[in-house]
């Protein structure tokens, strides 16, 4: 088993939480893991990405080779497109449709979505709306993780456990909220893939 994942978003949108969940789940399943994170400058509202690799055999490089990622998981639609050169031709894009507009020349969101929809395989979802239904828009990143969950080759229960572990310190309400978000994202993906 081997999954190479690009996580994408804007600094502050919570892609490191997604990475942490997948990482915890991978460790629980005794998989090897490498994760290249972005710290520093670009965390200030800039484009951020993380390379996450999980596999049953040891992993050599911290970076995924171009054109070889199995998945792009993005919490922002334009950011999912920025890493297309990394994606394998048969790879999936799992992206939120909600734009994060913090630059003056952000393109029309329809144009952005059209570009995603031109790709081979994708799931786009209104993660903010789904998260709001679950209780708080703050869990949109976990909704996106839920939508990616059928593609990760990880047991859904280990992902649930990872979410519980990650949010445990924030109280039961927050754990419940994020488990709901994870489930809602997963259901959306199963209906729309």
């Amino acid at each position, binding site marked *: 088993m081997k999954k190479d994942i690009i996580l994408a978003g*804007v*600094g502050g949108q919570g892609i490191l939480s997604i990475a942490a969940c997948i*990482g915890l789940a991978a*460790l629980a399943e005794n998989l*090897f*893991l*490498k*994760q*290249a*994170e*972005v*710290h*520093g*400058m*670009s*965390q*200030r*509202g*800039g*484009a951020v990405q993380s*390379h996450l690799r999980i596999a049953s055999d040891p*992993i*050599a*490089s*911290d*970076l*995924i*080779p*171009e*054109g*070889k*990622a199995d998945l792009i998981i993005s919490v922002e639609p*334009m*950011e999912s*497109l*920025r890493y*297309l*050169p*990394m*994606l*394998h*031709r048969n*790879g999936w894009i799992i992206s939120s449709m909600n734009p994060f507009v*913090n*630059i*003056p*020349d*952000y*393109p029309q969101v329809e*144009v*952005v979505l059209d*570009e995603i929809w031109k*790709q081979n395989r994708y799931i786009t979802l209104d993660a903010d709306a789904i998260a709001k239904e679950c209780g708080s828009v703050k869990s949109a990143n976990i909704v996106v993780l839920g939508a990616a969950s059928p593609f990760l080759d990880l047991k859904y229960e280990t992902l649930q456990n990872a979410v519980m572990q990650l949010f445990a*310190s*924030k*109280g039961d309400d927050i754990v419940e909220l994020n488990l709901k978000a994870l489930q809602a994202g997963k259901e959306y993906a199963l209906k729309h893939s």
Partner: protein
Amino acid sequence: MLGDEAIAQAAIDAGVSGVYAYPGTPSTEIMEYVQVSDQAKELQIRSLWSANEKTAMETALGMSYAGKRAMVCMKHVGLNVAADAFINSAITGANGGLVVIAADDPSMHSSQNEQDSRFYGKFALLPILEPGNQQEAYDMTYYAFNLSEQLRLPVLLRITTRLAHSRSGVEVKPLRAQNTLQLPGNLRQYVLLPAIARKQYKALLGKQDAMEIEAEQSGFNQYFEGENKRMGLVVCGLAYNYVMENYPDRKCPYPIFKIGQYPVPRQMMNRLYEECDSILVLEDGYPIVEELLRGMLDKGKLIRGRMDGALPRDGELNPNLVASALGLPVSVGNPIPGIVRNRPPKLCDGCGHTDAFLALNEAMKKYGKGRVFSDIGCYTLSALPPLESINSCVDMGASITMAVGAADAGLIPAVATIGDSTFTHSGMTSLLDAINNKAPITVLILDNSTTGMTGGQTSSAFGKIEDICKGLGVEEEHLHIIRPLRRYHDENVEIIKKELEYHGVSVIIPRRECIQTLNRRMRQKASARKLAKS
């Protein structure tokens, strides 16, 4: 663990007594790990931030003098600041184990340049370790303390951003006891008077062979056989992973000399050179090993690497760059669609720096653009639209002194903007120069009460800025503290305007807590309250 965390844990396990550092991406997380480690607390490992890298290096040297193990961590440009202490520490030598961590940033993810710290190691004539993965980062740090105590020399460990900030599982070693207080056997060892320094320098030169032998025997330089001798690979640090990534069965057909410790053992290099028709050198950073191999005239075997275009001259390596240098097919994905816009980093919503620069911009209108020297920190982002306020960012502390020089040249008024942490890092001596020069400059010390850019570490300047300024000789009537808030905008503009007209040193301190640390404090308070309730 992150590579940074592996280094921190290894130092704890190796019996370090003090870790010294000034924050700087990608090295910051080493110290942060020690600061929150319960184990480090229990062991009473000293772990407070220093004012800058030079003071950190010197404090570590002092701890080593007293016989205990010390580690000092910095980003690559920090080693420029600490260089005087670092280079001379090679002449004094170490008593307790002394390990210096320099974190390079090839591709300049968060830096002004991509200088290669291995040059400093070579320059200082010290051993260098270069881990290729998180486990090696751990193992080498642990070993570095031994090596330092065995050779009685500081040891440099060089990492890069990619290793510092990527995670993988790490196996740890048993905890060693810390050293006890023990003065150096020779109480003149650290007195670098010429007569003593000459002797010490000879001793350092005399240890070079032992350093090379150690690099051959430690196991961190490895030779891997390969059937295809048309090419031999010299691979430093992380580059080894990129080679292996290209051979899914992890079997590279070419012989490989994998370098993790310097000085490079000549015997091992010679074996590869003799065995193979040509050599490909793969290293992150500058082509240091490649240059050594080519020599000045490059008249030997065909050598390929960064200097002949087999690999780009700048930027970090990756699996695909290495694939093409190996002559392997390179995978490609789809191109980035034309509609994708750049998204550069920017000041946070609610950041006080924005209001400070809006006021400065307005006050400067009368004088036109090109007069604002700045420094390194979040506020450097004010160079970009929409603010476009500043005209320089060179090295920490340079804003004030560059303004002095420009004013000397006739650019009056000249302005300097500098963050609070940068001010105590290297701005205080600059301000002293300005005052002694009676320079007609206006200095804005942007006080967000933290070291913002690197994630909000305690700033050495906290609560001390006015007193420092007064102590250095800033006149009280030209020292102002303002609130960088929209509602005080007009008032602030007036103060800045007035001081721009003053023909001497003025200091204005826009003070408002960083929005990130403020939010963090609020969140911590809220969860503490929740905890108390339940």
